[in-house]
């Protein structure tokens, strides 16, 4: 109101204010509130008069949206947080109490033991190998499933809905849990790690690919159907050229994720550099742990950088 003064309606507004003041005074309301209500009335009156020139229409101004929903949402969130804090036994006191311990830990971690580098290079290479092989197997498995899932390529909802449901189930299990299960089945070593990463990448790549498949241009497919192409030909010449850049990009992205995941799979005995966390932490050699962390960081950042550059080039 104050931002947009409308001088031409001043008289009208003033009349309104006066009228209000009189009624308020009659009702014996305190001076403070009186001023407030006057301001409100003024605020309400002016736009309506400016629109229709009729003060009686002022109740048509829409009321401000109710804030009840916001308050309820806030209350629910606060309740959830409070319940969570009680359940996990979280408290600031504990954090403050524990922080000297943590500072000690950090002090012991620095400087990192650089000479440990030679010991962990083979494990790091194994980590990268696991990520590479796992991503490849996952990508190969994902292709047919993604074709089955895409609603514009699949025959009927009876095929793609159940396959999608299974795919969602596969994606609910985190990679480290998969690795723990595969370790129980196949024993220690990189093999269960590779299988866990394969299953995980399969779920991720299949989902990303089928979503991309659903956005492809139908034109080429219809043209090929019109000239009598077989389903295989339609996929090879109509679908693949449209999707391959996306697919390569998704595979590279999954590879980035898998390198990070492979670096911790060793914690459950599934090969790679993660095994050394347990070894060094178990012997309280925190300077070596720090070296592992730094090395992993460098390798992950490097692979991320190369992969991002490749993806930018391909897309």
């Amino acid at each position, binding site marked *: 109101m104050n*931002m947009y003064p409308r001088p031409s309606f001043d008289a009208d507004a003033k009349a309104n204010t006066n009228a209000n003041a009189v009624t308020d005074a009659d009702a014996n309301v305190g001076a403070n509130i009186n001023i407030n209500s006057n301001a409100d009335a003024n605020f309400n009156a002016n736009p309506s008069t400016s629109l229709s020139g009729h003060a009686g229409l002022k109740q048509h101004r829409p009321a401000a949206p109710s804030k009840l929903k916001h308050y309820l949402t806030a209350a629910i969130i606060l309740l*959830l*947080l409070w*319940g*969570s*804090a009680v*359940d*996990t*036994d*979280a*408290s600031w006191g*504990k*954090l403050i*109490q*524990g*922080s000297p*311990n*943590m500072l000690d*830990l950090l002090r012991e971690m620095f400087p990192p033991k650089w000479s440990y580098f030679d010991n962990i290079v083979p494990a790091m*290479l*194994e980590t*990268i*190998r*696991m990520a*590479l*092989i796992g991503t*490849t197997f996952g990508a190969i498995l994902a292709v047919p499933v993604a074709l089955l899932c895409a609603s514009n390529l699949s025959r009927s909802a009876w095929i793609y809905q159940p396959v999608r449901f299974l795919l*969602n*189930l596969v994606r*609910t*299990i*985190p990679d*480290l*849990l998969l690795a*723990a*299960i595969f370790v*129980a*089945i*196949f*024993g220690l*070593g*990189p*093999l269960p790690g*590779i299988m866990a990463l394969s299953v995980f990448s399969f779920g991720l790549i299949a989902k990303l690919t089928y979503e991309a498949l659903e956005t492809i241009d139908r034109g080429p497919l219809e043209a090929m159907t019109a000239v009598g192409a077989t389903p295989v030909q339609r996929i090879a010449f109509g679908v693949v050229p449209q999707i391959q850049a996306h697919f390569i990009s998704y595979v590279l992205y999954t590879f980035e994720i898998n390198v*990070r995941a492979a*670096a*911790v799979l060793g*914690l*459950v005995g599934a090969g790679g550099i993660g095994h050394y*966390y347990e070894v060094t*932490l178990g012997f309280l050699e925190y300077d070596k742990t720090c070296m592992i*962390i730094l090395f*992993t*960081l460098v390798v*992950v*950042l490097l692979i*991320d950088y190369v992969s991002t550059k490749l993806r930018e080039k391909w897309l």
Partner: protein
Amino acid sequence: MTTNTTTWRHKVPKPKKNRYRLLIYILLLLLYVWAFAGIPFDGIKETAGQITKSILSGLFSPDWDYVYLPDGEDLLRGLLETLTISILGTFVSTLVCLPFAFWAAANRGKSRFVSGSGKILLSFVRTFPEIVMALLFIKAVGPNAFAGVLALGLHSVGMLGKLFADEIENMDHGPTEALIAAGANRLQILWYAVLPQVLPGFLSYTLYRFEINLRSATILGVIGAGGIGTPLIFALSSRDWDRVGIILLGIIVMITLVDWMSGYLRKKLV
């Protein structure tokens, strides 16, 4: 007729092949040879098939008694703790990442050095695996759920901060400028121009991160940072396959439900 087709062929040449194509294939082949040569493959354990069968039969005949035990550890309590760890972890990271997001957002009238340094810091935090963070926090606050909360809270800052910064960068500057012109102070600008624009995006990303955190929280127990992971590891090492089956089922059901709810909320938000 034949002359016609030949001229037609002349007019439309085949697309040129990438000159480096062969080189890329050879490099990829070498990479795979290197990768497969380095993996020791000495056959699969003969018990593997049997154990797979027992896990599958465990999945189909789960240990229903474990769902609720009146005293001590059971499935529902484990799942509840996992859920609460991820709720609290997500909340902590949302609070912590807000200043970082505004730091890393490259807005007008801000030096590139400032936003660049913020972005590098966030990507640094992102590459730090949450399970390693949990290992460190366990040393600080002991092996309990609180260590898991702190690990998730700190790790998620990296990704949430980046997503939030992107959201701030993509903001429309009109309302901000209008408020500046009307003489609003910085707090008012933040409250009336910035927040209404970024809040739906922030909430949506927070929910998305919550989904990821829930998955992470299920594995934190593997190293003792609370949640359903601990009983799962115990069941695996004691070869109690029926219990493994019920825990896996519980995890799958919980994550599916939460994904579904969070997806619904996110659809409503944006």
